[in-house]
């Protein structure tokens, strides 16, 4: 069957203040095709999306939608021609119900003056049914999970007669199970002849869903081919321009002797996890993994005192301790880096330097309790150099940094309080592949310096590269424990899935 072209982008170039964001980019998306676009931060992915959306005007080139040629698109053209963009923030109204969020935009573009709630509910119900999803139409969207919001955004897009849906990093905040059901929806759309442009940097997802994959690097399309021709290594090669070989973490053989840094015995928290026992030695990196609901995050939060366990023992350096709050944990030398660095870890508008010293400012005071400028600057410089945070000034706001470097600032903030045990929850969520490798190197270096590190993650390659030991959790219990060198990616994936 000869595929029908829906969107054709011809020789698009765009520069900002003399910097080329896109150079001579061309590609075609066919009807019903799942077309993945991957690339590192700054490779031109979002510029391309915004040109298709009509937000930016290209300097050169043209766009042809279903045979119609456009020199420049306006947002309203894009919508009229059947292209819908689902941005990372979804553009939903938190104060409206599910029904209204789904149906309002299409009612608005039909120029309706009055709103009939019965009609709105009917439209919304049908839209959700068309992607085989059911949810409470009367619930306020502000109270829903990210995954549900995404499904709402998709149903809303379909109502506007979308023929191509562009999803910008749709899986960033989703759990594995939610990603699976999103993929089901995307495949469903494909059967109906609706194309998807899937913009991501999660390679395993791209491998799973794509019909066709293209890679951008520094504003240039470096490859565009049938998805079957790609594997993970090839994608990494095209994204970064070189092969990244990550070495797995090797720690000394005689490591697990003597007193463990942290010893957990029969730790239990009803409904979350039970009978958890393990040891963590200095210089070790232990991975805790498991599916959604396996209790991995609850365990991490219990160790950091946010949701304390009900029974069991926590022993640090041979001494039994009680951890009932985060400040207890800090006193015991435990640091915790949360999953959502944007909301829980950083003051985005504030300078990098101030973020780094935020938890330790009281150590930088002089005799009369004012901040010792010299000491502060030295401290900041040490961390920026030590963790190789890429910036030309500690005065820049944190939001000016890339995801990987932001994550380093979070790390610096916690390391500044000198923990002996560091718990990292999803340390590289939302970080692109190049920075990911560098972050992994940073984590390994910390362990080499004598810290004990716990990495909570469901990113299989990450676990295998970073950890020396992995604990697999299922339904609140540790069901398996093995050395990272004993398993390969496929075996671990199977074990994880069986949970």
């Amino acid at each position, binding site marked *: 069957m000869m595929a029908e072209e829906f969107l054709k982008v011809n020789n698009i170039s765009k520069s900002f203040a003399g910097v080329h964001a896109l150079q001579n980019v061309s590609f075609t998306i066919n009807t019903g095709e799942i077309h993945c676009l991957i690339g590192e931060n700054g490779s031109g992915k979002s510029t391309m999306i915004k040109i298709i959306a009509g937000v930016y005007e290209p300097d050169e080139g043209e766009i042809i939608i279903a045979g119609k040629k456009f020199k420049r698109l306006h947002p*309203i053209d894009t919508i009229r021609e059947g292209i819908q963009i689902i941005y990372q923030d979804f*553009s*939903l*109204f*938190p*104060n*409206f119900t599910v029904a*209204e969020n789904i149906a*309002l*935009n299409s*009612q*608005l*573009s039909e120029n*309706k*003056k*009055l*709103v*009939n709630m019965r009609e709105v509910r009917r439209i919304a119900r049908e839209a959700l049914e068309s992607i085989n999803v059911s949810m409470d139409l009367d619930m306020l969207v502000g*109270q829903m*999970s*990210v995954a549900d919001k995404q499904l709402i955004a998709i149903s809303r897009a379909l109502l506007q007669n979308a023929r191509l849906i562009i999803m910008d990093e749709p899986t960033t905040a989703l*759990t594995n199970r939610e990603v699976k059901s999103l993929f089901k929806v995307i495949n469903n759309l494909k059967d109906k002849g609706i194309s998807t442009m899937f913009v991501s940097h999660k390679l395993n997802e791209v491998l799973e869903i794509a019909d066709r994959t293209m890679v951008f690097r520094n504003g240039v399309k470096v490859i565009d081919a049938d998805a079957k021709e790609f594997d993970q290594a090839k994608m990494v090669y095209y994204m970064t321009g070189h092969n990244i070989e990550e070495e797995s973490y090797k720690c000394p053989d005689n490591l697990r002797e003597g007193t463990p840094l942290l010893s957990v015995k029969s730790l239990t928290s009803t409904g979350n996890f039970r009978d958890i026992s393990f040891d963590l030695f200095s210089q070790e990196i232990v991975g805790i993994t498991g599916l*959604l*609901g*396996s*209790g*991995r*995050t*609850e365990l991490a*939060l219990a160790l950091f005192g946010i949701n304390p366990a009900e029974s069991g023992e926590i022993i640090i350096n041979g001494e039994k301790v009680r951890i009932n709050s985060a400040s207890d944990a800090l006193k015991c030398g435990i640091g915790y880096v949360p*999953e959502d660095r944007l909301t829980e870890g950083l003051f985005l508008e504030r300078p990098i330097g101030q973020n780094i010293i935020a938890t330790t400012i009281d150590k930088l005071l002089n005799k009369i309790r004012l901040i010792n400028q010299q000491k502060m600057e030295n401290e900041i410089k040490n961390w920026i150099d030590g963790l190789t945070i890429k910036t030309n000034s500690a005065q820049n706001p944190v939001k000016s940094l890339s995801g990987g470097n932001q994550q380093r600032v979070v790390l610096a903030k916690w390391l500044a309080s000198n923990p002996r045990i560091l718990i990292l929850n999803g340390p590289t969520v939302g970080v692109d592949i190049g920075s990911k490798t560098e972050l992994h190197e940073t984590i390994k270096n910390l362990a080499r310096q004598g810290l004990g590190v716990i990495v909570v993650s469901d990113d299989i390659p990450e676990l295998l590269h970073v950890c020396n030991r992995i604990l697999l959790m299922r339904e609140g219990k540790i069901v398996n424990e093995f050395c990272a060198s004993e398993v390969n990616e496929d075996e671990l994936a199977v074990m994880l899935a069986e949970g």
Partner: protein
Amino acid sequence: MLKKIIKTNEFFVAMILIVLCLFIGILNPVFFTLQNLFDLCRSATVMGIFAMGALIVIISGGVDVSFTAIAISAMYITVKILLALNFTGTVVVAIALSALIGLIMGLINAAIIAFFKIPTLIATLGTQSLFQGFLLFFIGSKYINNVPDGMLRFARTNLVTTTTSSGAITGLQAGILILIGVAIIVWFILRFTMIGRGIYAIGGSREAAERAGFNVVAIQFFIYGLVGILAGIGGAVFGSHYKQANPFDLVGTELNTIAAVVLGGALITGGKGTVFGAILGVSLVVVINNSLVLIGVPSEWQKVVLGIILIIGAGIPAYKNMMAEKRLKANLSE
């Protein structure tokens, strides 16, 4: 369904209102006389009309503190013009003229807010001063001890009357009908029209509203124009009630109205609020301001009680929200 109702702010405010009324009424049965209820309705009329305007602004995520200045200016100018013309016709003309003047001032607010994109509170703080200064300097700062005949006749129009124990005749002043009419219109706009949903949409997320295709600037002109009209109408009714035009009246009482609206469940950050809730909020404020004196609470204490009820009334929903968010977060973190 019942559970849902109990959870709403309106239910909570209604409960406070009922408990307060019973409490006052038991201590002093005068509270439940028709005369007192008619007085309360009269007091609630002007604040209620203002509250409908304040509600719309708050739902859109703004705060307007200039409506009292608009009301008093529109009313004073209207009275001055009609007296100069020796106009003795119907009150409808006075209300319409006052509303028209209010509309013009409201559109000035809208223009400033839409084009300079400054926070609505700052813009209207500025125009409040501007409108009142303009009134005092260009129109007049003298107290007018008289209003046009139409307004006087309107002030004496009662829907029903009753004879008090002392033999005087009092009644339910007809202004309440204007409040009822305004409330129904605002309720209809907010609930059933696309522009009404647009007002909620802007309050929920301005960016999302723009992306969805709402014309945000046009909606802002609608909002502040309508608030101007309502302020003008409220001003005319206020002048009729007091049978005088004092250019120093009203300004300074705007926070009472805003407090009533917030008490009625409107979220000061926008996106949430109902006409019914705002009416309940106004009723509560009016009962506190007018009836605590019946049980011997000195007038200084009325302010304390109002303050406490406002803090509790705004604090409990905020606390519930915080708890709900915490639960949601706990659910989402697996």
